[in-house]
């Protein structure tokens, strides 16, 4: 059964601002689905529509088999959501916050007490449970926010950039928790700017650019679609770089090339075997290679080909103050 289905989903904030411009999704149960894109690409708007926080301009969407437009209350019962900015009440304690969240989902008082204790242990906040949230570090707030999203045991969880701003240790903790829940059958819809996050966690990803999905598939399939390996060649001038690009575009086995500054990236199968031929061809054309690197193609290469630019990660959020793994 499909966990999330969207058909020609559109959100326009005004005739000129097409935040989401007709996307289709069909995400099976039990998958970790990654939505990759830069800030402003439409990822969060999509999450807000699928979780009933925002009404689509047009199109349709079903989450957990339930229509988000005609039955939003039931949709909210089957989804858990942790948005990019943790939405917590500083004047409540962690325990009070989790308890209120559970009770608002209609969970009985006794069951709420059981689940709150269990989740506080899972997110390692048991010791801080009775402190006001205003005293929590960024990492603790993120974990509490995640616990709030899980308190009603949803089948489908939306995580909007769950690890943005987190230090590497806390980020690893969140990843492990996602993997564990997914093994238990929970479907995840994850937006991220981190390629390694998408690569590690996601069964399938979609790349979003300016409101549209520009590439979709498993990370392995997407990488292999542009060639298994990448040879990166650096030249002394932009002119030489362009000449090399023209030459290598037609080289045997090359599936694609991309130029950035004074470098050409060549996507090719069996790159190690192809290197001597590439270097000789360039030498015959009078082009001198300054540097050569051989690597497997990455999701960044996929992103570059799909969007025409590298994925710019918003590093501003990653301040130590926001991190705190305590």
């Amino acid at each position, binding site marked *: 059964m499909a966990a999330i289905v969207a058909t020609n989903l559109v*959100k326009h904030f005004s005739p000129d601002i097409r935040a989401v411009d007709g996307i289709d999704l069909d995400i099976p149960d039990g998958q970790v689905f990654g939505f990759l894109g830069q800030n402003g690409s439409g990822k969060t708007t999509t999450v807000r529509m699928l979780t009933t*926080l*925002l009404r689509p301009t047009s199109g349709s969407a079903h989450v957990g088999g339930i229509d988000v437009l005609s039955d939003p209350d*039931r949709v909210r*019962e089957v989804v858990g959501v942790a948005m990019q900015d*943790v939405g917590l*009440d*500083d004047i409540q304690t962690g325990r009070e916050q989790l308890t209120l*969240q559970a009770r*608002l989902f209609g969970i009985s008082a006794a069951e709420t007490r059981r689940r709150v204790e269990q989740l506080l242990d899972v997110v390692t906040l048991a010791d801080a449970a009775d402190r006001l949230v205003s005293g929590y570090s960024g990492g603790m707030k993120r974990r509490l926010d995640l616990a709030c999203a899980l308190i009603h045991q949803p089948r489908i969880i939306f995580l909007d950039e769950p690890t943005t701003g987190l230090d590497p240790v806390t980020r690893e903790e969140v990843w492990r928790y996602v993997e564990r829940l997914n093994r238990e059958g929970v479907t995840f819809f994850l937006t991220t700017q981190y390629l390694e996050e998408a690569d590690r966690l996601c069964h399938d990803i979609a790349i979003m650019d300016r409101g549209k999905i520009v590439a979709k598939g498993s990370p392995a399939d997407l990488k292999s679609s542009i060639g298994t390996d990448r040879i990166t060649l650096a030249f002394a001038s932009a002119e030489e770089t362009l000449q090399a690009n023209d030459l290598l575009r037609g080289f045997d086995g090359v599936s694609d090339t991309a130029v950035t500054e004074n470098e050409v990236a060549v996507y090719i199968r069996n790159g190690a075997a192809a290197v001597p031929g590439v270097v000789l061809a360039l030498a015959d054309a009078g082009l001198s290679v300054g540097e050569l690197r051989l690597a497997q193609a990455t999701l960044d290469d996929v992103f570059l080909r799909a969007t025409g630019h590298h994925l710019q990660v918003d590093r501003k959020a990653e301040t130590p103050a926001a991190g705190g793994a305590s």
Partner: protein
Amino acid sequence: MRFLTSTFLLTIRALRESIRQPANEIGNAFIPIFFYAVTIGAVGGVAAEAFGVEDYKGFQLPVALLQGAAGVAGGAGIALTQDIQSGYFEKLMLTSTPRFALVFGRMVADAVKALILSVVVLAMALLVGSGFATGVVGMVVLLLASGAFALAYSGIGVAIALKTGSPQAAQAGFLIFFPLLFLAPTFAPIEVFQPWLEFIARLNPVTYLLEGMRALVITGWDWDALVKGAAAIVGIAVVTFTLTAASLRGRTSG
């Protein structure tokens, strides 16, 4: 049932918040008590001679109660903007609880706080010598009217908060009360008003509210005044609740 349970839970949360941040409530209590004392001091001595009000302390008691209730009722909107700005309101919106309960809990908390403040103001008025024509039962009705007005009036600030997300704009919900109060028989009976002011005052629901509450304090069980006062509260509630519901729907339409 779910609506009532959620409203109760969110009322408790809002009251807990007030206990943890008492400064706002102290400010809300100061204003009506200050104005009550100053008005009695300035006008009380000449009220009987000037416009025939013998018990001016009783005459001013409903004014102090409404001032206190309106001040408290402005708190729901401001607190809601804080929830909106922190993102917590969105987290509440993601629960499956009836959405009107998410704001109604805060409004009921304001009514409870207004009720508590009204007990303080009433006790103070009785201590300084205000009369009370309808006894203990009348006092209970007066306190309930105060709380009901706070509940109804808090809808203005909440509607503005939902629409704008701005604490400054939500604060304006409280300020709207001042023209309404001064265009009503606040300092003197309506009978001594100039005709133009009387005409305006007769269109103002606060006039009927004040006259109903004053009947309990000064005149006795004047059912005509009480029914009109109750109708004024219901009228305010219908308008503010409708605005609140519309603003709540607007938050998801983007």
